[in-house]
């Protein structure tokens, strides 16, 4: 059974000033699936991800061409409100970046801004469920007033995941969410993704082949700004069409 296409990327070209970071990327991403993006460092995975919630708008020198349709609507259209888009497309960054506020406030930030909770109990409800979903609730439930930056790196990353899912996005972009985590926390996050994909569409950048193989349905391989190949994860890891992909997944370069 093939899922419905959620995100449709066509002829995406991205420049940072003079330097081109992505070349003519075309890719379909299915709903309720986990799509993994792999590739050597500096090949443009983060850049690609940041195009999907228009995070690159923040960078002055970054120019994006091409079209990205989410549910058939081009997100680079003039009449798209970028704040609404980002509410629907959540993001977890490569480096954990909790706000210097309390743990509770970190998670309550999004719901507050978008007015998702009618009163205090509802807000608490949202915060608690988000923390639970991100597998960090048990560790922080007694110290929700402490600042988010006092947590360890891995805890901070899970806090950021909780923050991202607190506004119930459709799509979640994760940029190496497990790079700072131990195997147990990683397993928790992977279980979480497994869980989340029932409701959300997840795109994850990872440097771990095993992780891509474990969690994703489809995998895309980037190299030097080109999307070399995208296919079912099993195919990518067993019989990829491109030699470069084979070299990369078997660890011969990268």
């Amino acid at each position, binding site marked *: 059974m093939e899922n419905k296409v959620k995100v449709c990327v066509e002829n995406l070209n991205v420049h940072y000033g003079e330097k081109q970071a992505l070349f003519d990327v075309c890719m379909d991403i299915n709903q309720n699936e986990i799509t993994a993006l792999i590739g050597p460092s500096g090949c443009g995975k983060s850049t690609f991800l940041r195009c999907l*919630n228009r*995070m690159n708008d*923040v960078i002055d020198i970054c120019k994006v061409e091409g079209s990205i349709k989410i549910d058939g609507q081009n997100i680079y259209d003039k009449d798209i409100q970028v*704040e*609404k*888009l*980002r*509410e629907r497309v*959540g*993001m977890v*960054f490569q*480096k954990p*970046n*909790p*706000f*210097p*506020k309390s743990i509770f406030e970190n998670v309550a*930030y*999004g719901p507050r*801004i*978008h007015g998702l909770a009618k009163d205090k109990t509802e807000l608490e409800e949202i915060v608690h469920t988000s923390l639970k979903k991100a597998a960090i609730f048990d560790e922080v439930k007694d110290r929700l007033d402490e*600042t988010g*930056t006092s947590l360890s790196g891995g805890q901070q990353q899970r806090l*950021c995941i909780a*923050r*991202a899912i607190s*506004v119930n996005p459709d799509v979640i972009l994760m940029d190496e969410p497990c790079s700072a985590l131990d195997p147990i926390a990683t397993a928790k996050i992977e279980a979480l993704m497994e869980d989340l994909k029932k409701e959300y569409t997840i795109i994850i950048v990872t440097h771990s082949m095993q992780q891509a193989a474990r969690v994703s349905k489809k995998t895309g391989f980037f190299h030097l700004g080109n999307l070399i190949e995208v296919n079912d994860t099993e195919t990518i890891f067993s019989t990829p069409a491109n030699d470069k992909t084979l070299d990369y997944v078997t660890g011969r370069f990268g």
Partner: protein
Amino acid sequence: MGLITFFLLVLFAITSFYLGYFRSNRVRVIEKQRPFSLDKYYGYYLAIWSVVPAVIILFAILIFDGFIVKNYVLSEFYSQGIDQSEISLLFTQIENTRNGIKLFNSEDEIIVNAVNKLNYIEGIFEITSIITVFSVSSLFLLYGYRKINLNFDARLIVEKFILIGFFLCSLIAILVTVGIIFSLLYETVRFFSQVPILDFLFGTNWSPQRAFVRDAADAADIENAFGAVPLFSGTFLIAFIAMCVSIPVGLLTAIYMSEYAKSSVRNTAKPIIEILAGIPTVVYGFFAVITIAPFIRSLGGSIGLDVSSESALAAGLVMGIMIIPFVSSLSDDVISSVPQSLREGSYAMGATKSETIKKVIIPAALPGIIGSFLLAVSRAIGETMIVVMAAGLVANLTANPLEASTTITTQIVVILIGDQEFDSPKTMSAFALGLTLFVMTLILNFIALRVVKKYTEKYE
């Protein structure tokens, strides 16, 4: 002896440096092994040994030699039983004669003798001190030199020495502060022995010029002349007006500059704003008197208000303008140093730019922003010239910003201008005012520190 000694010392230090440098080099060659530290550290090590004790001795000599010389020259006068004040007068005459200033008694035999004696002892002192300094230095140098061997870590010792240097520097700032406090304190205590402290702190009438006469009949008058409340209120009023201008304008400028302005705009606008801080305060005073005050007057007149030509409002407004760059420049720096990743985290949640600024950036930058406010407040409280020119000198207990007013600093200036008897209560009241100002800013700082600590949001 100053210049020669100085050059000799520098020469000595350089020689010692190379001595250490080459010694370490030789050790390396002979032992065929790398010493603990780099060669230059052995050089520094020896330079320190040769110079630091010398400098300490020199200082000691500097402090004591005047005393010894004086005693030696005057010893025979002491034995003659001439009284103290006459002796010090005599010594001044001797010194003056020596320096070629002709006095009525320059030809006196005693004076001529004494001058010869003075020249003689100072000559001896010069030579002996140079000899002592350099022989002691050489001893230390020798000691240091002999310690250099393969297992001796000069780097650590140089490091320790640098640490001591830093410590001494910070000590200087603290000692100066303490010194200032004590000099103020001394005069203030004398002042309060004549004027009761409660009258000073809570009295509402300030007219120190009335306190000239000091006989019994005027005693009551003295007590009534030094009520500083009008000055406190004036200071706070004007500072408050100034802050009402500079905080909003400065903060919003800072936010615009750091978050919204293109870098080309920022690069031109920022220096221009900072020029405001470089304009002499007298010029601001002109501006207040010639432009702002008449403007306020006519504006007030047109709505039927009576505005005096010198007003706290004019002074406060102009002072506020002067302080804007203090707030904006500092706040701009702290806001810009909030990491970009926090902004992105907020945008990624779907927050708008202004929400991000309000909820993430300002809270994260708050300690620095409050710091800039504090700096601005202390500038406002300490500012004198604008007030002198634009707000008047009349101590006038009022909360009405349209009337003339005066501040603590202004009154200090007024009191100390011109010839003063240094023990009249009027003069001493300036010190009491100074100390009060000092204590006030101290309390302000303390409160602000507590506030900042409470609301600090730490980011990495």
